[in-house]
């Protein structure tokens, strides 16, 4: 594993390898990865979310990257399928994104 990537693991055990910079769009993940003391999360760069399902976690990762693109001046829309809206909002609330 590279130093500047983190692995986010969904409820079903699917893994998403994203850049640390992208994952830190989420305040919750940022706190997990940067808090002092040697937490397992900080050391291995792996965070498991037993409460977030795979499609939602993937959407969240896409959002991280969209957010980075948007802040660097690219104006595209972030499409959200209506059927996942509620679950996505609950996850976003938990992750402070």
């Amino acid at each position, binding site marked *: 594993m590279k130093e500047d990537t983190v692995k986010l693991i969904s409820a079903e055990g*699917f893994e998403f390898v994203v850049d640390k910079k992208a994952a830190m769009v989420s305040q919750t993940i940022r706190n997990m990865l940067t808090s002092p003391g040697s937490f397992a999360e900080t050391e291995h760069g792996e965070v498991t979310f037993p409460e977030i399902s795979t499609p939602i976690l*993937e959407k969240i990762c896409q959002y991280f990257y969209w957010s980075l693109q948007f802040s660097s001046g690219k104006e595209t829309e972030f499409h959200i399928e209506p059927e996942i809206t509620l679950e996505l909002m609950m996850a976003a609330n938990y992750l402070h994104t």
Partner: protein
Amino acid sequence: MAMYIRVKRHKTTYFIQCDPTETTLDIKQKLQALIDQPSNNQQLTLVATNDILDDLKTLAEQKVENDAVVGLALRKGLFCIPFVN
């Protein structure tokens, strides 16, 4: 950051930051750092069209766009039968 692609294999998805002008080989080299597999053992397929990506062509040429899903296959075993002309 210009764009990213999602490279998938088994239960894992790698989000790779890249540029439309980069070649498939550039992507494979980025993957090499993540998965410890040399680039010549990797095969990338654009899932939307089922096209195998050519090492020397750029992403733009092969219509690999932002947020595209690319499948990753790895060569099995240590030996590879050479192609006889």
